[in-house]
């Protein structure tokens, strides 16, 4: 555990080393997120509400997904790179260390630009989430669960590259998760909606957590935690099984 903490401290120190670059990237991501808010403001100004979603509830949804993405893509930045690292043979160094490989890999890199998402998400919640102590605690809890679902999904789809030898599935999974998570799941119907609760669990990184903050429900909270646990275990299992098929990036081991 100490080794993992030291790894994470190093990753944070690395990203903070160039303070000006770090701050500028955080600001740029903040501006980027503001544009999304602007889109939704313009959208709802024009159309009123859509299937129970209005400007206020969508801002809460954005607060949840930007925080979850900030953790998953910012603090655990390698989550989206597992597939490429597997294909390019970049895991040799990790395997030689006396630490759990997946945990080390996830904590080893922090992406400054996505840390901006995390900061933006909390600002958004403070602005649009009507924060009370209870709502803030629920918000933090659901964000952690949503980040677990997102990280688990990214590692799971990335780990498919161990078996397929290519990472197109991981790339598509990454884009699909971020995009689909940015919209309320209620705009979809039929098979698409089922897909968002199962194969691409975007509903559990934005809509379900946002609803829990707005209107806490024990059943849905348990469901969210269960889904987070399932994706965490599935990601770990896929990565561990995938490592057995891993081929080093060293030229000496290439056929």
């Amino acid at each position, binding site marked *: 555990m100490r080794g993992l903490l030291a790894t994470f401290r190093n990753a944070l120190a690395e990203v903070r080393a160039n303070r000006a*670059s770090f701050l*500028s*990237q955080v600001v*740029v*991501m903040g*501006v*980027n997120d503001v*544009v999304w808010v*602007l*889109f939704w403001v*313009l*959208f709802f*100004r*024009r*159309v*009123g*509400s*859509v*299937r129970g979603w209005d400007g206020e509830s969508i801002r809460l949804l954005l607060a949840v997904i930007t925080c979850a993405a900030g953790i998953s893509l910012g603090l655990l930045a390698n989550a989206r790179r597992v597939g490429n690292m597997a294909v390019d043979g970049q895991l040799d160094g990790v395997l030689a260390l006396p630490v759990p490989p997946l945990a080390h890999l996830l904590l080893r890199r922090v992406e400054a*630009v996505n840390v901006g998402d995390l900061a933006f998400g909390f600002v958004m919640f403070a602005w649009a989430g009507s924060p009370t102590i209870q709502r803030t605690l629920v918000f933090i809890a659901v964000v952690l669960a949503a980040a677990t679902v997102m990280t688990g999904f990214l590692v799971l789809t990335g780990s498919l590259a161990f078996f397929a030898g*290519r990472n*197109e599935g991981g*790339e*598509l999974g990454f*884009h*699909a998760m971020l*995009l*689909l998570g940015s*919209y309320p799941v209620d*705009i*979809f119907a039929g098979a*698409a909606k089922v897909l968002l609760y199962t194969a691409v669990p975007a509903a559990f990184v934005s809509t379900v957590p946002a609803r829990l903050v707005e209107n806490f429900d024990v059943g849905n909270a348990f469901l969210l935690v269960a889904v987070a646990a399932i994706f965490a275990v599935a990601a770990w299992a896929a990565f561990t099984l995938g490592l057995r098929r891993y081929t080093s990036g060293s030229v000496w081991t290439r056929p």
Partner: protein
Amino acid sequence: MTRRRWPQVTAGTAALRVVAERGSLAVTLGFYVIVVAVLAGLWRVAVGANGGDIAGYSVVAITWYVVCTEATTVSLNTRLIADLGRDIGSGAIAVELLRPAPVLGVRLAAELGRVLPRLAACGVVGALLAGLTAGAPPRPAALALAVPSLVLAVACNIVAQHAFAGVAFWIRDTGSAWFLYQKLVFILGGMLIPLEALPGWLERVASVLPFRAMSYAPARLAAGNLEPVLLVEQVAWLAVLLWGAGAVFRAGERRLQVLGG
């Protein structure tokens, strides 16, 4: 490569590479289908909830609109500004000055070559999606004009990104500037929301900027509005942007030759 044939050779080679990388093309198409499904779904629900019309767009029109805007966006390399800025900032572009062809010209030709196969694939898939989910195009004659307009849209976007990234000759790092550029196209280019649905003041701002030539113009045509003037506007913006990018690169290359990479 002879002096006369370098644009075709460069663009052709780049296009063949994209076609050969089928996995990457499949990811682009998969992403395109998802984006279109999401955004068209959102707008269809919104139009349906507003009596079947928002800012003059029916369900069918808005679906064809979205299909077009997303094709112009997904087919592009979204990080082009960052990639270009890195090449310029690191001095790697200096090697390209040794070629007997202009750096900007070769880069534009290569990028256009890479984009066109993706644009064609997205266009075909998008037309199928729109036809199956919403219905036939509202006005086939306008849709025919949307085809050259799509090519002009990505050309304008590629040239503008080169002009934007060219500042790296001076500031060395375009970092995450592509995020901001992309968002300008998203809102002021009409990619996420038709310009007619914007508040009046913002629509007026968008009408004098080049971003509408990069997404809105072909989408407006595909949505059934027979407005050939949009093509004229795109050609005019393309000329202006080419002039701007050329000026930036000429000054930047001069600086690179004097100060080194």
